[in-house]
C-alpha cells in the first residue's frame, strides 16, 4: 500500500509528475473517446440517447484505470469482468484481435442480464499490457417479458439469455455462431446486431488509443505512469475521506416490495470513517428476495462508489486506486450480495435505496452534504402489435421520481436520482414510434415531502394504448413506504399505477406486475414517488410556501395543514396571513 498523503509520491526514477499526469490524461481521453464512439455508432435509443452504457480501460492485471460512466450504476459494472474472462481464457492463449463477451452477473457480467460487456486485450511489443472494455444496456435479451426486466422473476433463468465469457471476435473476425445465438434470443434482433457491432467498434478505437499511449511513452514509463495514476486516485479519495468526521454512522431503510409481494425488506448500513479509510458494512440487511430486486456484489459496489463520489468529491476520477480507500462488506445471500440463481433484473430499484440509506447515515456526520430520501423511477413497458404497421413493438420506458430536499435547498422536481440517470423519450417521438397517445405529463402537486426545505415533486403520466394484443410490465418501488425525511422533514408521497384513472372503471394496479393485458383505448397512469423533506415543515419560510402555492406545487390546504401557513386572497394576488400563520404554528408547537 502506498503513502496516502496528497504530496507527489510518484516512483520518481521512472516517471516525473507531469509525464505521469499526461499518461493519465490520455487514458481518460481514450475511455471518453470510446464512449463517444459507442454512443455515436450504437443503433438503439437506449444507448444512443439514454446513454445506458459505459466504457473503461484496465491494466493487464484487471485493475481499472479509466472509466466513463454517465449512469452511476455503471461505476462498477465492469469490475470483475477481466478476472472472469482471464479465468476462462488464460492470457497466454489470447491473441491480438480477440474480444470476449459476457452478460451473466454471476460470471463477470454487469449487474443484470441486459448489460452486455465486450472486452479485448491490448498489446505493445508483443506483450499483453491492457484491456479495453465496454458495457451497454440492450433493451431486450429474451426472458419472460419484453425488455427483460421484470420485478416478479424468481430466478435469473427467467430473465433472458445467460452468457459466461465467450469469444465474440477472433483475429478481428466476428464469431458468427455466438452472434446468432444472441440474436435468436432477443425480441429485437436488428437493434441487437447494430448495438453489438458498435460495441466491437468501440473497443477497436480504445485499443488503438491505448497502443498509441504505449508507443509514445514506451513500456516502462507508461507502466510507471499507470502506478502513479492509481496512487493519485487513492490519495485524492483519502484526502476527501479525511475531511469527514471520524465515527460510526448507522442507518436503515426498507425495500417495500420484494417484486412478488409487498413486504418490508431491511436495507441497512454501518459506515465507519476512520481517518482516511471508510468501511461500508451492510451486514443485517435482508436475505435475498424472491423477486428480481437483488443486487449482485458489483452492483452494491456501484452504489457505494456513487455515494462516496457524491459525498466527498463529485469529480473524483474512478480508478482502482480510489477503490482501495474503501472497504465494503455484504453477507453472501443477502439483498446486497445475491447468489445464483437469484433474479437481479430490477436491481436498480434497490440501488436507489442504497443511495438513500448511505446518505441517511452520513446525515449524522455531514448534514450539509446530503439529501433526504428520494423518489425512485417507475418502469412501465408497453408491448404489442402496432396497428399502423402490423409490427410487434416494445416501448421500454422509465419515469423519474424526484430528489430529496437538502439542508438549504428544495429537492429537485422530476429527476432521476442516485444511481440511475437515463433521459426520457419525448412525447412527440413516442407517439410517432409507438401506438400510444400520451394525455398528460406533469408534476404532482403536494407530492413532495414537507419540510423546512421541500422534497421534489413526482411526475404523472397518462397513456392510452392503441396496441393490438397489448401487454404491460410495471415495476415501482416506494409504493408502500415513502422516501424518508431528514431532521424532521416529512416523507415523500408514494407512487402508484392506475388503470383507467379518473373513470368509473379506475383500478389500482400492483406495484410490480408482468404480462398484464391492456385493451385498445384504455389508459394507464403512472404516478412516481416524490422526494422527502429536510427540517421541520413549520420552520419553512412562509414566503417559500406562498411561492409554491402560486406555482401550484403546494395546495392552499396543504400550506395550512402541512406547513401551518395561512394564505389568503389579498386584493388581486395571494398573500401570507402573518397573524393566522403565527397562530397556526403556535398551536402546533403547544400540542
Amino acid at each position, binding site marked *: 500500500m502506498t503513502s496516502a498523503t496528497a504530496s507527489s509520491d510518484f516512483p520518481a526514477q521512472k516517471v516525473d509528475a507531469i509525464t505521469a499526469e499526461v499518461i493519465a490524461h490520455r487514458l481518460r481521453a481514450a475511455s471518453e473517446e470510446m464512449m463517444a464512439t459507442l454512443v455515436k455508432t450504437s443503433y438503439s435509443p437506449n444507448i444512443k440517447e439514454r446513454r445506458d452504457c459505459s466504457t473503461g480501460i484496465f491494466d493487464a492485471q484487471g485493475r481499472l484505470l479509466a472509466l466513463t460512466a454517465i449512469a452511476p450504476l455503471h461505476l462498477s459494472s465492469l469490475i470483475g469482468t477481466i478476472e472472469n474472462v482471464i479465468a476462462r481464457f488464460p492470457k497466454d492463449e489470447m491473441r491480438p484481435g480477440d474480444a470476449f463477451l459476457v452478460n451473466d452477473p454471476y460470471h463477470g457480467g454487469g449487474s443484470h442480464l441486459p448489460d452486455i460487456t465486450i472486452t479485448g486485450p491490448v498489446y505493445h511489443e508483443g506483450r499483453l499490457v491492457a484491456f479495453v472494455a465496454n458495457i451497454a444496456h440492450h433493451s431486450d435479451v429474451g426472458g419472460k417479458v419484453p425488455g427483460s426486466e421484470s420485478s416478479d422473476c424468481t430466478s435469473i433463468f427467467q430473465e433472458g439469455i445467460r452468457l459466461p465469457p465467450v469469444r465474440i471476435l477472433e483475429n478481428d473476425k466476428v464469431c458468427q455462431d455466438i452472434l446468432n445465438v444472441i440474436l435468436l434470443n432477443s425480441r429485437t434482433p436488428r437493434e441487437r446486431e447494430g448495438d453489438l457491432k458498435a460495441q466491437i467498434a468501440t473497443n477497436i478505437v480504445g485499443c488503438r488509443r491505448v497502443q498509441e499511449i504505449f508507443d509514445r511513452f514506451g513500456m516502462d514509463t507508461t507502466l510507471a505512469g499507470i502506478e502513479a495514476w492509481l496512487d493519485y486516485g487513492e490519495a485524492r479519495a483519502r484526502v476527501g475521506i479525511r475531511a469527514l468526521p471520524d465515527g460510526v454512522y448507522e442507518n436503515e431503510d426498507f425495500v417495500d416490495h420484494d417484486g412478488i409481494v409487498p413486504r418490508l425488506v431491511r436495507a441497512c448500513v454501518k459506515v465507519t470513517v476512520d481517518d482516511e479509510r471508510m468501511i461500508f458494512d451492510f451486514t443485517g440487511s435482508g436475505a435475498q428476495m424472491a423477486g428480481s430486486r437483488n443486487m449482485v456484489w458489483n452492483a452494491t459496489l456501484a452504489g457505494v462508489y456513487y455515494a462516496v463520489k457524491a459525498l466527498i468529491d463529485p469529480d473524483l476520477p474512478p480508478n482502482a486506486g480510489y477503490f482501495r480507500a474503501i472497504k465494503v462488506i455484504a453477507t453472501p445471500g443477502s439483498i446486497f450480495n445475491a447468489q445464483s440463481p437469484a433474479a437481479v433484473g430490477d436491481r436498480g430499484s434497490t440501488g436507489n435505496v442504497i443511495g438513500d440509506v448511505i446518505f441517511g447515515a452520513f446525515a449524522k456526520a455531514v448534514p450539509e452534504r446530503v439529501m433526504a430520501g428520494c423518489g425512485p423511477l417507475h418502469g412501465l413497458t408497453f408491448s404489442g402489435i402496432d396497428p399502423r404497421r402490423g409490427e410487434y413493438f416494445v416501448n421500454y420506458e422509465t419515469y423519474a421520481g424526484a430528489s430529496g430536499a437538502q439542508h438549504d435547498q428544495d429537492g429537485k422536481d422530476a429527476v432521476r436520482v442516485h444511481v440511475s440517470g437515463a433521459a426520457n423519450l419525448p412525447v412527440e417521438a413516442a407517439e410517432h414510434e409507438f401506438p400510444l*397517445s400520451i394525455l398528460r405529463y406533469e*408534476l404532482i402537486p403536494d407530492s413532495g415531502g414537507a419540510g423546512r426545505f421541500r422534497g421534489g415533486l413526482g411526475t404523472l403520466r397518462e397513456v392510452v394504448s392503441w396496441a393490438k394484443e397489448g401487454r404491460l410490465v410495471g415495476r415501482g418501488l416506494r409504493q408502500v413506504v415513502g422516501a424518508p425525511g431528514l431532521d424532521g422533514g416529512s416523507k415523500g408521497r408514494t407512487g402508484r399505477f392506475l388503470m383507467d384513472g379518473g373513470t368509473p372503471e379506475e383500478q389500482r394496479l400492483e406495484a410490480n406486475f408482468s404480462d398484464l393485458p391492456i385493451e385498445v383505448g384504455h389508459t394507464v397512469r403512472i404516478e412516481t414517488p416524490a422526494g422527502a423533506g429536510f427540517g421541520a415543515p413549520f420552520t419553512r419560510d412562509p414566503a417559500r410556501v406562498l411561492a409554491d402555492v402560486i406555482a401550484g406545487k403546494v395546495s392552499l390546504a396543504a400550506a395550512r395543514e402541512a406547513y401551518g401557513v395561512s394564505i389568503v386572497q389579498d386584493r388581486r394576488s395571494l398573500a401570507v396571513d402573518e397573524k393566522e400563520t403565527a397562530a397556526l404554528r403556535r398551536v402546533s408547537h403547544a400540542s
Partner: protein
Amino acid sequence: MQADTNNSNNSFVLGIDVGGTFTDLVMIRLQDGRAFLHKTPSTPADPSLAMERGITEILVSASAAPAQVSYFGHGTTVATNALIEGKTANTALITTAGFRDILEIRRQRQPHNYNIRIPKPVSPVARHLRCEMTERTFLMGRENVAPSRVELDAHIAGFDRAEIASVAVVFLHSYQNPAHEMEVVEWLRAALPGKFICASHEVLAEFREYERTSTTVLNAGLGPVMSRYLDQLESRVKSLGLGAKPNIQQSNGGFASPREAGHRPICTLASGPAAGVIGAVDLSRRAGFRDLITFDVGGTSTDVCLIEDSTPLIAREREVAGYPVRFPMIDVHSVGAGGGSIAWIDDGGFLQVGPRSAGADPGPVCYGRGGTEPTVTDANVLLGRLNPQALLNGRMPIRADLAREAIESKIARPLGLSVEDAAEGILLILNETMVRAIRVTTVERGYDPRKFALLAFGGAGPLLATPLARELGLARIVVPPGPGLLCALGLLVADARRDFSRTRIVPLRNGASTLIGQAATELSTQADQWFADENAAKAARSLDWAADLRYLGQSHEITLPIVQGPFDPEVVTRLAEAFGREHTRLYGYAADAPVELVTMRATARVAMSRPPLDVAAPITSDPSAAQLGSRMVHFPGAGFVKCPIYDRFAIPEDVTIAGPAVVEQMDTTTIVFPGHRFQRDKFGNLVIGFS
C-alpha cells in the same frame, strides 16, 4: 436589401462587433480594400453608446463621411447577455392541457450525476404563467380537439395583472398541424396589440416538444429586449447620418435584417463567435486555406471550430443558461481554459490548469496587481515566450520575478521539479486539454485532423498553437493580422440567411416522394415569402436543401444535403443509398434496415459581394529590418536559446524566416519553435510550417 456593397468607389463598409469588454470596429474602403481597425471600451448598459463613439472615431481615422458608409454589419451580445443574466421579458406560455410542466420535467436528468448540490436551472416561464388549453393533435385513435376562444380569453384576462410582455404558444405536434397555433396566435395578436407573440411552428417546426418549447419561450423572452435594442440602435445610426441600416449577425453565420432579428432574436445568440468563424473562412479562402481549425484563445476560454472546404460545421442544438436552444448554428466548441487559467495542485497531487481564471482583475501574478496564483501567462513570461518586461506595446509592465516566485513555490517545489520544467508542465497540461477539445470536434466526428491548418488567434492563440498543432499532426499554423479583425471582417462578408425546417416522419419507400414533395413545397413557399419581405434581388437568391434521416427505430438523425426537387421516387432511392454511405463514413457500418426521413430543411441565402482587402506590408525583402532585438526563450528539450524578436507589422511579404522566433504585436505574441519556419502572406497572415 442591397445585394451589392460595391456600388460606389467612394463608399466604405463598416463592421462592428460589440463584446463584453471591447467594441471592435473595422472599415474597409471599397476603392482599394484598405482596412481600418479600431477598438473602444464597451458600454454594457446601453451598447449603442460605445458604438456611436466608435463610429465617430473610426470615421475620423478613415477620413470618411457618415453618408459614405454603404453597408453596416453588426454583431451583438444583447441576446446572449439577456439570457445569461436572466433579464428577459416577462413571458407567458400557452400550451396543450396536461403538458405545462414539459419545461420543468425537461429530459428528467439531474444537472450533475454526482454533484447533488447543483440545483436545476430556473424555468424561463414561471409555472403559474404556463397556461393550458384543451386542444390536441392526435397521431392516431382520437379526433383532434380545436382550441377554444373562451378558454384563451380567461388566460388573457390574467396577463394584465402579471405584466406580461410576450406570449409563446406551443402545442403538441404543431410542426405537423400548425393550424391550432396559428388560430391562437391570431386571437392573441388581436387581443394584445404591442405584445410580442410567437408560435413554436414559426420558430422551430420540428418535433421533440421540450427542445421546441424551450427555444420558443426563450425567443419570446428576448423579443421585447431585442426590439428595444434595435430601436435605440436605429435611431443612433440615423442621427449619425450613416448611409446604411444595421444588419445583425446570426449564429448560423448569415445576417438578418433588423426586421428579421426582431422577430427571431434567438437566432442572434453567440453572434460574435459566429462572425469570427465567418471572418476566418473569408480570410483563409482569400489566402488559399480551405480546411481549418480555428483556435481562438482568450483569457478564460478557448473557442474551436472546424471548417472543411471553407464551410464551417453546423450544430443543431446548444444549451444557454441551462436550457436548450435548437436551430442550425455554427458549431463553436468552447473549452474553459485560456491564457489566464490558474495552475494548481489538486488533492491527489496532480497539476491542474483551469477552469478557474485570474481574469482581468487581479490578473496573472506577473501583472503585479496582487494576483498570487500562477497562470498560463506567468508560465509564458517565465519561459521568455512572452515579453518579460512589458506587454501591450510597453503599456503594461511585467513582473517576471513575481511570476517565477509563484511558480516556484506553488508548483515546482511541491512537484519536485525545476521551475522551468514546472512552467513547461503547465503549458503541457493545458495543451492536453486543448488537444482533447480538438479531438472531440475532429476525430470523434470522423474527420482526420492532419489535413487541416490551425488558425490561431485571440490574445493567447498564436502563443500556444505550436505544441497543439504538432500533437495533432496538423500541417501548418496560420496567424491572422489581428485578433479583433476576424469578427469585424466576418460581419462584412456574411450573406443574408434564414433556415427553414419541417418535421415529416416518413419511411423512405414507395409513396414517400409525394410527402417529401409536399414538405418541400411548403418550405419553398416560406422561403419565397422571406425573399420578398427582404426585397432580395432575384439573381442573388439561393435555396439549399437537406434532410435529416435515420434508420427505423433510431432516435438520432444525420443531416444530408439533397439536390432540389422534383422529389420523384428515384430521388428517394438515391437518398436512402446516400444515407447508408454517410452512416458508414461516420459510424463505420450501414444497417440492413429501412431508412426514415424525419425533417426536411431549406436554407435560403441572399449573396453579398465581398469587399476587397489589403493589409499593407513594408516593401523590403530584408527581415532584419523587422528585428527588434533578441532574448532568451525556453523550449522543451532545448532549454533557453537566444531568439530573435520581430515586429509583426514590419515583416516583409513572402520571405521565409527560420525559427526560433518571437513575433510581437500590440495584442498578441506568436512563437515559432526551433526547426520551424514562417512567412507573411499578402493578406498579412503569418504562416508557420514545420518540415
